[in-house]
């Protein structure tokens, strides 16, 4: 999984983000709006809890027999005229896609919004191979034009407001009206004009997929803008890069997932465009279809009996929108294309240990708001605690925690420490070390005159 080079661990990245008052205002407004929309459409369904349970069961069944379903998917896609490629990691996947684009004689591709291709750094890999990738999702286009990074799974430019986007379009979009306003209709029209030329000339499109149906070989893309439909139907060659956990067993399962996803993601009963296709169809749509099935750490996560729950994720972002930590610091602080609570359990598993990945399971208060809204019931707090147990703890912290466990292991040792704590809380504001992190902004309580045990003994 591609690393955002130069990113510090979460606490430092978060500190920097917290200083950006415009960012916090943008995030508060945007997440607040999506939270309210989601809550309203979820409340319409009195069977929402049954739907969530069905969604969980479908994803668990798919993951339990993933080997069978993937091979079934490969057969069905092949029968329908598609070609299936297997990619162990990002390098293999990027190599396959670059080779296919070159074989098609193209030097430019149009892209449908896709987390998998962000995860493997496909655009950068294609650029290195002399191929230009154009993001056609409006928010991804904003990120691309700004030489920026996505900060949300569903709304990658959530950290920008309309005025910032207007300025960006005026500066970076070729041929744009220099008098462009920040009216959403005007901004969308400018993007539409910019993209239309590319849709009509591109010979190769690259997409991801929200679901892959093993039973039928169908791929499914769920979107709002119609740019995806353009990419999936106009070019001659379509390449879809899909994580192996996207497979679901049957077409009937889609009925459940397509009720869960839009409500959880954009707070809509149904999204505007849902594209479903199988292989190729003579005289209609792409002449060539390639499916690149991506592992890139997923089988490692699958082997972890608690961590594997993260593979149920359908990338709706509901957990980001309710997360009080995400709302304060935004997505960039997570140093990964998968921010927020789901990113905090997905990134360390896909990427393996490094200082950023090790800091992510701690980027949560374990408040549990994410579990409440997850449409496939991923127990994110439980997975966070589990992953905290797998990181290499800093030596000083380990020593403190072991000493604390030793003290608490005996009531007489604990009593001795309690007696000095009364003094300790008075001194704490002058003490160095971890306590300083508390007292910089917060007082410690004044010690009580009489301990509970003294009081209890005095009553007898």
């Amino acid at each position, binding site marked *: 999984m591609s690393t955002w080079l130069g990113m510090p661990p*979460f*606490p430092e990245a*978060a*500190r920097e983000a*917290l200083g950006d008052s415009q960012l916090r205002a943008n995030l508060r407004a945007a997440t607040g709006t999506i939270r309210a929309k989601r809550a309203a459409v979820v409340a319409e369904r009195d069977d929402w809890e049954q739907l969530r349970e069905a969604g969980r069961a479908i994803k668990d069944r798919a993951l339990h027999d993933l080997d069978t379903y993937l091979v079934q998917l490969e057969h069905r896609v092949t029968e329908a005229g598609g070609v299936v490629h297997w990619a162990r990691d990002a390098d293999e996947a990027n190599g396959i896609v670059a080779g296919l684009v070159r074989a098609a004689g193209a030097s430019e591709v149009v892209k449908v919004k896709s987390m998998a291709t962000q995860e493997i750094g496909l655009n950068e890999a294609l650029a290195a191979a002399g191929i230009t990738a154009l993001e056609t999702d409006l928010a991804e286009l904003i990120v691309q034009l700004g030489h920026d990074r996505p900060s949300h799974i569903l709304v990658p430019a959530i950290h920008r407001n309309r005025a910032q986007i207007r300025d960006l379009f005026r500066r970076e979009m070729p041929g744009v009206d220099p008098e462009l306003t920040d009216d959403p209709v005007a901004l969308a029209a400018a993007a539409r004009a910019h993209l239309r030329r590319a849709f009509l000339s591109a010979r190769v499109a690259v997409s991801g997929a929200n679901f892959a149906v093993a039973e039928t070989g169908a791929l499914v893309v769920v979107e709002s803008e119609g740019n995806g439909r353009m990419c999936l139907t106009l070019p001659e060659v379509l390449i879809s890069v899909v994580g192996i956990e996207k497979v679901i067993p049957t077409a009937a399962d889609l009925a459940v997932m397509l009720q869960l996803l839009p409500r959880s993601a954009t707070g809509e009963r149904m999204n505007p465009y849902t594209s479903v296709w199988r292989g190729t169809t003579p005289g209609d749509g792409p002449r060539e279809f390639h499916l690149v099935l991506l592992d890139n750490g997923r089988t490692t996560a699958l082997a972890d009996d608690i961590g594997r729950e993260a593979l149920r994720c359908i990338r709706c972002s509901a957990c980001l929108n309710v997360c*009080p*930590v995400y709302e*304060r*610091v935004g997505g960039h602080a997570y140093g990964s294309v998968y921010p927020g609570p789901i990113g905090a359990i997905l990134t360390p598993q896909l990427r393996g240990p490094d200082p950023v990945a090790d800091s992510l*399971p*701690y*980027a*949560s*208060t*374990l*408040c*549990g*708001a994410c*579990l*409440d809204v997850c449409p496939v019931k991923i127990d994110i707090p439980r997975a966070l*605690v589990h*992953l*905290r*147990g*797998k*990181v290499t*703890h800093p030596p000083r912290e380990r020593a403190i*925690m*072991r000493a*604390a*466990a030793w003290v*608490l*292991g*005996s*009531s007489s040792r*604990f009593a001795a420490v*309690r007696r000095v*704590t009364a003094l300790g*809380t008075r001194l704490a504001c002058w003490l160095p070390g*971890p306590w300083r*992190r*508390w007292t*910089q*902004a*917060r*007082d*410690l*309580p004044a*010690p*009580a005159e*009489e*301990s*509970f*045990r003294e*009081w*209890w003994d005095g009553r007898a």
Partner: protein
Amino acid sequence: MRVGLFLTCLNDTLFPAAGKAVVQVLERLGHEVVFPRAQTCCGQAHFNTGYRRECGPLARKFVRDFAGLDHVVSPSASCVAMVRENYRDLVGESPPVYEFTEFLVDVLGVTDVGAAFPHRVAYHPTCHGLRLLDLGDRPTTLLRAVRGLRLIDLPDAKHCCGFGGTFALKNADTSVAMGTDKARAVLGTGAEVLAAVDNSCLMHIGGLLTRWRSGTRVLHVAEILAGT
């Protein structure tokens, strides 16, 4: 009824008043409270910070210390949640622990403890009480029955205060940013007192409120229910 008190290490060290209040309310209602003196800590901080191995002996000690009691009551929702959610997996058994307001309403069937507290009070539903124990309106039902108490709605009450155990130290800046929003919401209500069922969260919010010289106090719900 004979009831064991699980004070918790934090209350034992810094907030003895919460323990005293639990004893006073239960005795006033005619129950016998026992305090196993060997008790120390449920191991929550170790477990949640990723020190599961160090947590094991503490969990086994807890089970030994409270053996033979049919009802163990604690003035900490998050410590009760720790025992209830994780002990079966950690040590193979789950002692019969109850959060204080949950015990009053569900086990004793009491919603009016005969308290008086003539102040404006805002209630913050702490995350583990809200989402792990599903305390719902039990604490506020008890508070509403207190003579003279005016319960004031806290905006965005269900948003986390940012304490989060070791999160408050490991991610101190984010923790303080969240706590600041919570403390501002409290001040905006004009309440004289912020109440909750977890002194850990109150230590965090209260630490900001006193640093700001705001004059708004924090109190455990049990302390309000003990007032006459």
